[in-house]
């Protein structure tokens, strides 16, 4: 599958990555190559195999419903550039 420039631009926007116009062509080629490489998996005959997301023969481990974590505001906000009154503060987001 080959990606065109417009698709790469859309993906970059969804991921909030700023990509200069002149890099789009080159990235489209690189990403198409990656997809092509992964698509080789399509050559394997999987008829009769249920779709799966992993090969581990285990079940989802579960936790008890008890409060064991969370009272750590200083840690949580340690990397925030401008925390205020215990909040993260970010540029105005408005719909």
């Amino acid at each position: 599958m080959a990606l065109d420039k417009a698709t790469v631009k859309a993906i970059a926007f969804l991921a909030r990555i700023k990509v200069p116009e002149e890099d789009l062509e080159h990235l489209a080629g690189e990403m198409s190559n990656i997809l092509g490489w992964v698509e080789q998996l399509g050559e394997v005959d999987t008829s009769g195999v249920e779709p799966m997301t992993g090969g581990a023969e285990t079940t989802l481990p579960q936790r008890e419903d008890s409060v064991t974590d969370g009272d750590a505001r200083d840690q949580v906000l340690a990397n925030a550039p401008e925390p205020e009154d215990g909040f993260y503060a970010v540029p105005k987001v408005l719909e």
Partner: protein
Amino acid sequence: MPYLIHGETGDWEVVIGLEVHAQIVSEAKLFSGAATEFGAEPNTQVSLVDAAMPGMLPVINGYCVEQAVRTGLGLKAHVNRHSVFERKNYFYADLPQGYQISQYQQPLVGEGTVVLDLPDGSSREVGIERLHMEQDAGKSLHDRDPGRTFIDLNRSGIALMEIVSKPDLRSPEEAGLYLRKLRSIMRYLGTCDGNMEQGSMRCDVNVSVRKVGETDLRTRTETKNVNSVRFVMQAIAHEAERQVAVYESGGTVEQETRLFDPDRGETRAMRAKEFAHDYRYFPDPDLLPLDLAEDYIARIRAALPELPDEKKQRFMTEFGLSAYDAGVLVAERETADFYEAVARGRDAKAAANWVISNLFGALNRKGLGIAESPVSAENLGRLLDLIAADTISGRIAKEVFEVMVETGGEPGSIVEEKGLRQITDSAEIEAAVGKVIAENPDQVARFRGGNEKIAGWFVGQVMKATGGKANPKLVGELLKEKLRN
């Protein structure tokens, strides 16, 4: 009566589907051990998982799964033994992971049913499309600073159930009934507290309109995060009118996300619509599929409480209540329990009247819920016993009840203290009757002259003379006897 919009080109019907986000009642979050309690100081209930620090891994809270399964069973829905968590990718300041862990192609719960109790006593079924589990996002505060948005992640990672109805609703009233019923079911189950003011239950409203007789659905709009039943009803009414106006002026309705403005009672398009959402769902590689054993589901099913529909049916057959009264009494589990405690072993219809007319009236006046009722079920029951034993009349009972509302007192002692015990001693009543007759010869003459309606006036005089305490039935009998002779 169908809800129709009468346009210039004919009648339009409204097609409504609701997506309800219900916070699961649990101590800890869906994938972390941080607390869920509402109203804590900002960012004090946030684990490094909820803040999406690199390398953190989600571990599912088994109780949240149980709660979601319980809700599915309460909605008479099919619980899928195999379900999958996926990542729903989008950027927003209060979503630190950059994706929400949700379920998409393989949800935990499939199709179910909610029964609406219509005001005329009939009922109507509304289909549930699915119920899936997901994480809540953090909270953005836009009004604390002119240039910045403040983010609190306490809500980030709390377990949500998204409950999607089929497009079966046809009016704002039905949507309101559906929300109330869904809330009632979840409160009975103890799976969501249904508090829309605190945001533990939120609603997205899908609305389209079509000409009466059309069978295909037209384009719908989605109005996000409407946070009260009344607002949901307003948003639907406004949005339906708007769409009809668009069609009738030759336009087309665009599939878009809208916001409800409670101050103006109208919906408006969100500004950022240049990019359609592309969530790029894919199975979350941090989480294995959720596989449930048949006997696990069976155990939860076996422990389900009696739900509102079943309770209503039982109140009708066991207590002989009307569909309307039964519906009112079962809407809240606490009310139903209160009523049953009063009714058990007593005149169940009288108990229903006292709870619905007198108690609800008093609680409304005082702005109290049933849990804060100054009159306990035990004391209201005792009051009914006093009436049944002819210790007090119904009229005096209302007086005693008002004292109970004010003081929370026990009716027996109020009756003794205030000397309200009914006079059933016929000699005492006879004396009072005799006195009234002796003092009012003119009225007696009018009665004997054929004006029998005046008997009521005599009853009133005797009741007044006895401070309302005379047994009204005895008074009537004695008066009849004395007046006739």
